[in-house]
């Protein structure tokens, strides 16, 4: 389509923590500086900067893009902020891709930041204002309610149990034990998940990722520059994004159609015909354990209603045939929303370069995918990467 090839050439990330001493700007700077160092660049080499961060209500700063610009290395450069709820972090490389693929930039720094801890008593409170102001807010909903509603519908439609779903939390928290940024890694059992506090049945405490502070950054470059910077560029071969209606209660809650639409766009671009065979490794968004399953199905990595069985069979384990969330995901590494999506991109980047350390999946994966989803269960973002 007349676009240039784009590669990821460097990455940086902070630890994900419940409450960071650092400000959002400082976290952004730490991740950005590490990303530049990882590929031996300085800020002078950067043509453009994009930044992803989720609701301004977390920080109480109603211009987060501008506020964080210093930490993202954007001063004096073309700079754009993007925000698509939980889908933000995987939209971040897409946004950067636009700049480089179009020829507007040769090197783009892509930053994602979230500092949720400023919002008290709990950042969940900020989510009240994503609901419709007159037809929904008077019922005082939380995001946990609508996840519980969606999870229940998913369980009912496909006859899946809470124990089937809990395996995802067990797997991801265990995977995260090998991730140096991890906030809530642990060796837990399905029984631990089922006996943890019931928040909104069918959702228990250990079905959910935590609130987190953290930042991540990548450097992306045009083909010519990427080949000069590294022997191991990881190509962004497909991007996809799609939004569904905010009338979320009028949709089929058992299947994320918007993820499928985004995936089809990315697969078409990457020339992928059989995603379950051609995608070797995936990092779907897992803020809740059932969402990993939901998203695997929307990504067409398995038939609808079958993702839990793949998990039970160990197919999605790090040493299985289709490793899913080898990083440890949002459930294990933590969930500073925008930064989580970019953490997933970084995990695929490292896995495809064979640089994931103890987390490295066997078999030299060549093709991977990261996906996120957000807003009122309506936004899908997908990136397909190849080594």
């Amino acid at each position, binding site marked *: 389509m007349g676009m240039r090839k784009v590669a990821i050439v460097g990455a940086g990330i902070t630890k994900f923590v419940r409450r960071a001493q650092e400000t959002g700007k400082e976290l952004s700077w730490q991740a950005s500086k590490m990303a530049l160092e990882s590929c031996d660049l300085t800020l002078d080499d950067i043509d453009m900067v994009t930044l992803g961060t989720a609701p301004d209500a977390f920080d109480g700063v109603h211009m987060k893009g501008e506020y964080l610009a210093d930490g993202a290395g954007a001063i004096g450069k073309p700079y754009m902020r993007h925000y698509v709820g939980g889908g933000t972090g995987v939209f971040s490389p897409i946004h950067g891709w636009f700049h480089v693929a179009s020829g507007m930039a040769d090197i783009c720094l892509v930053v994602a930041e979230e500092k949720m801890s400023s919002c008290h008593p709990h950042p969940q409170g900020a989510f009240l204002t994503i609901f419709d102001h007159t037809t*929904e807010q008077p019922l005082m909903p939380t995001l946990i309610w609508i996840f519980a509603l969606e999870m229940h519908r998913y369980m009912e439609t496909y006859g899946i149990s809470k124990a089937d779903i809990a395996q995802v939390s067990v797997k991801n928290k265990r995977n995260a034990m090998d991730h140096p940024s991890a906030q809530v890694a642990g060796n837990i059992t399905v029984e631990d998940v089922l006996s943890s506090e019931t928040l909104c049945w069918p959702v228990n405490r250990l079905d959910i990722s935590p609130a987190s502070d953290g930042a991540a950054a990548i450097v992306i470059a045009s083909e010519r520059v990427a080949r000069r910077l590294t022997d191991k560029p990881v190509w962004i071969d497909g991007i996809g994004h799609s939004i569904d209606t905010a009338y979320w209660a009028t949709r089929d809650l058992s299947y994320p159609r918007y993820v499928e639409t985004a995936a089809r766009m990315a697969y078409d671009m990457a020339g992928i015909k059989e995603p379950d065979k051609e995608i070797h490794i995936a990092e779907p968004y897992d803020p809740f354990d059932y969402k990993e399953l939901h998203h695997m199905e929307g990504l067409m990595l398995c038939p609808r209603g079958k993702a839990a069985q793949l998990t039970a069979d160990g197919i999605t384990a790090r040493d299985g045939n289709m490793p899913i969330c080898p990083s440890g995901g949002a459930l294990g590494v933590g969930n500073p929303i925008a930064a989580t999506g970019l953490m997933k991109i970084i995990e695929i980047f490292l896995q495809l370069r064979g640089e994931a350390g103890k987390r490295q999946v066997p078999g030299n994966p060549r093709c991977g995918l990261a996906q996120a989803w957000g807003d009122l269960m309506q936004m899908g973002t997908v990136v397909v990467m190849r080594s």
Partner: protein
Amino acid sequence: MKLEDFELGGTQLKASDFKTGKVLTTEWKPDLKYAWDNGVAIGRYLAEFKEGRIIARVCHKCDRIMLPPRMFCELCFRPTDEWMYVKDTGVINTFSIAKVNWDASRRGPKEPPLLPAVIEIDGASEGMGIMHMLGEADPKDFKIGMKVKAVWKKPEDRTGAITDILYFKPVAAGTEDKNKGRPEGRGKEVR
């Protein structure tokens, strides 16, 4: 590169850091107030709530009977065509038994759980659900697919708000509407 070779930023503060005064804090409590305009469609929708009725909007091109009502069809991208009353009964699409409030604080031991649900309203197009609450029965007795009916506030207490419906309760056995099919269960058309 390997993450393990870098000194990662992000310094965890502990609860004890706050208790002992190692970390100083300051607080801001915004007191913002909004007066929202509801537009034509939601304005009429809520005015009908005050009368104890639910009204939808119909698009003749895609033939959808839409809740919440809207003055334009987002799929056909054209004006919608007419108002139509739908029933105040419906089917539970999904529900939860919530022990947390909107700000993630926990319900007290004596407070009953909240029962948020998606209810597909009879007379609207298939799948046209709204979020509302369930009530009047034990949480364990609710099931997906169960028929429910709105319990309205007393007329003098209604304000033209979504909360003019207190909750939806199970339809007592034997009084169920036999016209289960939705499109043919269309309500009376009004102008």
